[in-house]
């Protein structure tokens, strides 16, 4: 008995436990995302209810269409509000690790698509924090002026962007080469997203609030630029 106990003690650390996963990071991310969603929902819940009620009053059959439409792009959650939440202008993009296009293509397990006719992206980033397969963000422009931000990710993660539409900003359903999409336009809208470092970033209409989001072939895309709807759609359709 004593020998066996001694043997057991000497085997300390020898039990074939599987490697411990990075639980702290996973738990922290889940807490942040939940807190972000809760804050946004709280900020907009009352107004969203009023807006939806008004919509329903005007068009009783529209309820499911409105809800389905706003939730139709995986990874993007949109709420309506009569007033934008008071968020500090904190546009410090945390798009992730900066890398070359060649390197990015090696690192993600999906084909990276870029818009045609707008030159090469000024910066390219990869974030593996928020969704399992990684988020690629291409920034066009220069140090002084960002002209276009193009983001793509594989469908399957949780919400990546939370958008709150205030008065004067609108959302309309569009199609991009037959694929479902949403065009957000008008006045500014608030964007809240979880950055590559797991922190929450908020901004109000980084680029005048004209944004196109769509889904095609198992991927979601987001294009934000100072463009008309027609030009944005044309640009989106150039992405194959």
């Amino acid at each position, binding site marked *: *008995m004593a020998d*066996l*106990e001694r*043997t*057991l*003690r000497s*085997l*300390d*650390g*020898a*039990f*074939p*436990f*599987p490697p*411990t*996963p*990075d*639980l*702290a*990071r*996973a*738990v*922290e991310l*889940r*807490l*942040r995302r939940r*807190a972000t969603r809760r804050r946004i929902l709280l900020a907009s819940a009352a107004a969203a209810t009023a807006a939806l009620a008004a919509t329903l009053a005007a068009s009783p059959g529209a309820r499911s269409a409105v809800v389905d439409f706003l939730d139709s792009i995986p990874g993007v959650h949109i709420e309506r509000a009569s007033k934008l939440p008071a968020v500090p202008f904190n546009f410090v993009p945390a798009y992730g690790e900066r890398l070359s296009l060649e390197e990015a293509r090696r690192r993600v397990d999906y084909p990276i698509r870029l818009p045609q006719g707008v030159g090469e992206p000024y910066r390219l980033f990869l974030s593996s924090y928020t969704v399992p397969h990684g988020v690629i963000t291409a920034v066009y422009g220069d140090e002084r002026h960002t002209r276009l931000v193009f983001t793509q990710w594989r469908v399957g993660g949780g919400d990546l962007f939370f958008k709150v539409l205030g008065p004067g900003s609108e959302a309309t359903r569009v199609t991009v080469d037959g694929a479902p999409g949403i065009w957000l336009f008008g006045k500014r809208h608030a964007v809240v997203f979880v950055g590559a470092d797991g922190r929450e970033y908020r901004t109000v209409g980084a680029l005048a609030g004209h944004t196109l989001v769509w889904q095609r072939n198992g991927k979601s895309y987001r294009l934000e630029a100072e463009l008309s709807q027609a030009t944005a759609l044309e640009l989106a359709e150039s992405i194959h």
Partner: protein
Amino acid sequence: MGRPLKPESEWIERARQGDTDAYAQLVRQHEQVAFRTAYVILRSPVEAEEATQDAFLKAYRALHRFEPGAEFRPWVLRIVANEARNRRRAIWRRLRLRERAAAEIPSGGAAPSPEVELVAQEERTRLLAAIERLSDDERVAVISRYFIGLTDEETAAVLGVPRGTVKMRVWRGVEHLRQQLEGQHG
């Protein structure tokens, strides 16, 4: 099993006020022992990871009930063990856990060992196999004591039984191991 370098009470207090960074520090401090505890109960790394994550989230929501000045580790291990046991009950309802576990138990001894250690290696493999044949209560008690490094008090929290029962289960587990190993030699 390192102990915190910074007073846990400070992290706990900050976490209570919604500081997720502080809570992540707490999780990091205890994630290995928590994961291993869940693994011993569930015997599946995937289930253990999910159970541990869920348990840490439940613990975060329950921080307001944590008694100031108390030890955090046994408190959170109790939540982890409860979560793992609940999950195991659900699995049992769906599947026969024994069959699942048998396929997932690592064979052990994967790393090559020098020739002089071959005998010891074989003994160790036999011992680990014998541990797997113990009853669940004895197996969890023995692994918690000798391989995870829990104190009797922490093992009692994990098992949800008094310390005296823990001592008895460890003693019986070791005795059953001895009988198994002697039977093999005989």
